[in-house]
């Protein structure tokens, strides 16, 4: 057999830290042959990124790598920078997770692309420009000429990722390494990029690093599963997915949504209080949140409203879990913050237990907050770094039960810690001493300690690992059930929403486009946008099987400062007609109980 393109033997990476040596990669072996598409899968901390950093010679200063890495037979581990630079970028390119962090913010996209070409090939300016434009076309950026002159921040996340890939492909490398290329992206954009990577397989050899087996499933031929710095399983994708031998792989697989199987939880039994006419816990009527933003019109700048939330109505019954889904920027967080009165509404009403919240004084509102808990997305930044976990959790008690004795409060904190699965020793620690999952547990403990009636969770698990994610979801479900709290669960991840929620609201560009029971929504989505979202869930599907009918949406969501006329979704809708441009579809009820805003549903 021919020589492998890249071979890696007994690779070790060790970091020197204040706490001693950290052995991050413990003897990894693998090889990549030309034309392969290899997926390296593992949770954060499993060493997958450090492995590739070692390959590329990009390890941090306190790291030491040992072993053998051969690229086309040439030893490149710990090779001098001069030799590496001949290979790096030119024969072997890398795409990083965060496209914003790896593009230079103050350089135009085109200039960055050209620089690579001029550096590696010494191309002339016009030649480089032509080549760069071609590169942008290959990655299917809409209007490449226009994007060529833009700065990275003017592009959307998906476009930036495409630029990164274009940059990596410019020198026609033999090997492309992509580290979590879709993790920072929205579901529909992820579907676009994966689609594109699939088409790229013909051109080059690819190594994809990801925590999401769903990404690997439809794309890679071979998989390497890593845990704690070592390889626990390897093989053809098909074999691993069908008959994995290692329990860790099995647990990762179990966490994946399966397209055929219906929801993971029986539909919520209709509760006594849910009969119509009964007072809802929360009622939102025509809520609008507009942010004034400056827009340039020729020479003058004008204030135009950015309609982050534009006429949203829904109600929440006691004890019910309602999911809000939609792509980034569709106004989910804004909606939740407006419901919590953390930002002022431009219009509409928020009625909490029969009382209009917008009329309340700040003081009166603060009193109502006892019943309104909140858990945010970023576990670390939602805890005050200068307070210990114990005082963070105790704070709502001090606020709402100032008369409570110290002993009593302490007992309550200990109980809360136990409830969320933290140890009592943990309360003297600071947030940064915890993992993301533990921080999120602390956030939940803080929110739940005063027994709220409504818990708003804004992407509570989005930044967590698959297995941690499952634990936190289970915790939320359990606490929600035990204390009868209603939960608003915001997420862009439909597979999570499907497990957790009784009812789902789908948002697009500040509006609700579909609202339905969980099962109705997932079994028979009525709105074209919902259909696209559901089909974009990277599911346990193999590339070799005939692909299921995938709806890949074109382009990005339009700007909320200038939403399209008529139906806001019409610019990306595969079934739009003329009517859609003229009239905004109202939210109307279908036979199966779902409410849908579409003329043709």
């Amino acid at each position, binding site marked *: 057999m021919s020589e492998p393109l890249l071979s890696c033997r007994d690779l070790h990476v060790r970091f020197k830290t204040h706490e001693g040596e950290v052995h991050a990669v413990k003897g990894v072996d693998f090889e990549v042959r030309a034309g392969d598409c290899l997926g390296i899968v593992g949770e954060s901390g499993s060493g997958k990124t450090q492995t590739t950093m070692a390959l590329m010679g990009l390890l941090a200063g306190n790291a030491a790598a040992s072993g053998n890495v051969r690229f086309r037979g040439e030893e490149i581990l710990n090779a001098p920078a001069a030799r590496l630079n001949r290979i790096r970028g030119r024969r072997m390119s890398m795409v990083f997770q965060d496209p914003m962090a790896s593009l230079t913010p103050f350089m135009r996209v085109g200039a960055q692309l050209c620089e690579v070409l001029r550096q590696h090939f010494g191309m002339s300016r016009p030649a480089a420009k032509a080549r760069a434009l071609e590169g942008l076309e290959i990655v299917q950026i809409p209007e490449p000429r226009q994007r060529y002159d833009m700065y990275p921040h003017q592009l959307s996340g998906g476009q930036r990722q495409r630029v990164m890939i274009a940059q990596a492909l410019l020198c026609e490398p033999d090997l492309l390494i992509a580290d979590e290329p879709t993790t920072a992206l929205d579901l529909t954009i992820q579907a676009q990029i994966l689609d594109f990577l699939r088409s790229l397989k013909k051109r080059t050899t690819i190594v994809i690093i990801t925590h999401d087996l769903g990404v690997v499933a439809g794309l890679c031929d071979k998989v390497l599963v890593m845990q704690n710095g070592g390889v626990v399983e390897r093989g053809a994708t098909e074999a691993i997915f069908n008959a994995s031998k290692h329990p860790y792989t099995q647990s990762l697989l179990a966490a994946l949504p399966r397209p055929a199987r219906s929801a993971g939880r029986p539909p919520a039994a209709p509760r006594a209080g849910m009969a119509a006419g009964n007072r809802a816990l929360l009622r939102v009527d025509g809520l609008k949140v507009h942010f004034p933003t400056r827009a340039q019109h020729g020479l003058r700048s004008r204030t135009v409203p950015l309609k982050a939330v534009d006429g949203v109505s829904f109600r929440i019954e006691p004890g019910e879990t309602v999911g809000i889904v939609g792509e980034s920027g569709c106004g989910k967080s804004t909606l939740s913050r407006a419901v919590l009165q*953390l930002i002022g509404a431009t219009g509409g009403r928020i009625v909490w237990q029969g009382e209009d919240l917008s009329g309340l004084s700040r003081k009166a509102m603060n009193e109502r907050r006892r019943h309104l808990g909140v858990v*945010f997305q970023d576990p670390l930044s939602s805890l005050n*770094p*200068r307070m210990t976990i114990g005082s963070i959790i105790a*704070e709502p008690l001090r606020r709402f039960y100032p008369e409570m004795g110290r002993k009593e409060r302490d*007992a309550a904190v200990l109980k809360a810690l136990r409830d969320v699965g933290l140890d009592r020793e943990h309360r003297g620690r600071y947030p940064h001493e915890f993992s993301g999952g533990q921080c999120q547990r602390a956030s939940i403990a803080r929110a739940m300690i005063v027994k709220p009636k409504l818990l708003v969770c804004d992407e509570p698990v989005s930044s967590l690992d698959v297995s941690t994610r499952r634990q936190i979801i289970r915790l939320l479900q359990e606490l929600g059930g035990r204390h009868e709290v209603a939960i608003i669960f915001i997420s862009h991840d439909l597979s999570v929403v499907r497990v957790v929620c009784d009812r789902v609201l789908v948002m697009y560009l500040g509006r609700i486009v579909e609202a339905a029971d969980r099962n109705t929504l997932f079994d028979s989505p009525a709105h074209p946008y919902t259909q696209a979202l559901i089909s974009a869930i990277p599911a346990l599907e193999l590339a070799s099987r005939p692909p299921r009918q995938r709806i890949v949406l074109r382009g990005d969501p339009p700007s909320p400062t200038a939403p399209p006329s008529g139906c806001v979704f019409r610019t990306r809708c595969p079934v739009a007609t003329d009517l859609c441009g003229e009239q905004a579809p109202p939210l109307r009820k279908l036979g199966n109980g779902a409410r849908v805003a579409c003329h043709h549903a």
Partner: protein
Amino acid sequence: MTPPSAASGETAAGGGAPDPQGRSLWQDAITRFRGHRAAMASTWVLGAIALLAILVPEFWPNSLDDVNWDYLESPPTTDNLLWFGTDVNGRDMFSRTFHGARISLAIGVLTTLVALIIGVAYGAIAGYRGGLPGDLMMRLVDVLYSLPALFFVIILVTVFGNSFLLIFLCIGAVEWLTLARIVRGQTLSIKEKEYVQSARAAGLSTPAILLKYIVPNAIGPVIAYVTLLIPINIIVESYLSFLGLGVQEPYTSWGRLISQGADEIGNAPWLLIIPASFLAVTLFCFNFIGDGLRDALDPKDRSR
């Protein structure tokens, strides 16, 4: 600035062994500060200077304005306890140096404290309130900024009379401007953090959020600036006294001693070298203490 976050301070109420959670930010900070060698050494040195500044003027046999006719402009000698020599008028430099230390340290620390309190409060409120009121507050700062600071102090001192208390009130009242800007900038970014949202969602009042969430998290750059401000204030005082607006003869300060010493640099270098070395040592000490404080107040810094 933060009240010790006490929930954790309530040790082991549930009974059992004293677990390690009796820590508040400040208790923790003290432990960490103790571990910072340079800061601890500086604290001792500064403490020694401060102690001498208190004791020497009270108990030293040579007072600050006794003229030693036999020792006009004498270099340091052991005769008559003239360890630091004498100045042109034959006055004991040892006594004068520590008299000066008293005034310089008091001015340095107190003016900075005034600036710190006004600046942090103003900046945090302006930043947290934001919007038009916040902007107006900062415009006012800009306007005050455009006045030359020293000029402003001079006006204040001439209008309100020349008293010791007034000097540091005046200097402090000018120097809070930069602090207000620093703190406002920090506040603007901190208030967008989710933990502040979470504090609001937990129904905390604005003062509580400012005290427990904003100020402790904004403190790093503030401390860095404050350690610079103390020596600056010591020097500002010397300008003022040079203009006849600071402390007056026979009282003295390091700033005055240095400017007088500079005039005699050719014939009596010790007149410059001695007070200048004290000022430099003090300056270094404040810097190290500042470093130590900043690290100590940051729970993330566990490296030392």
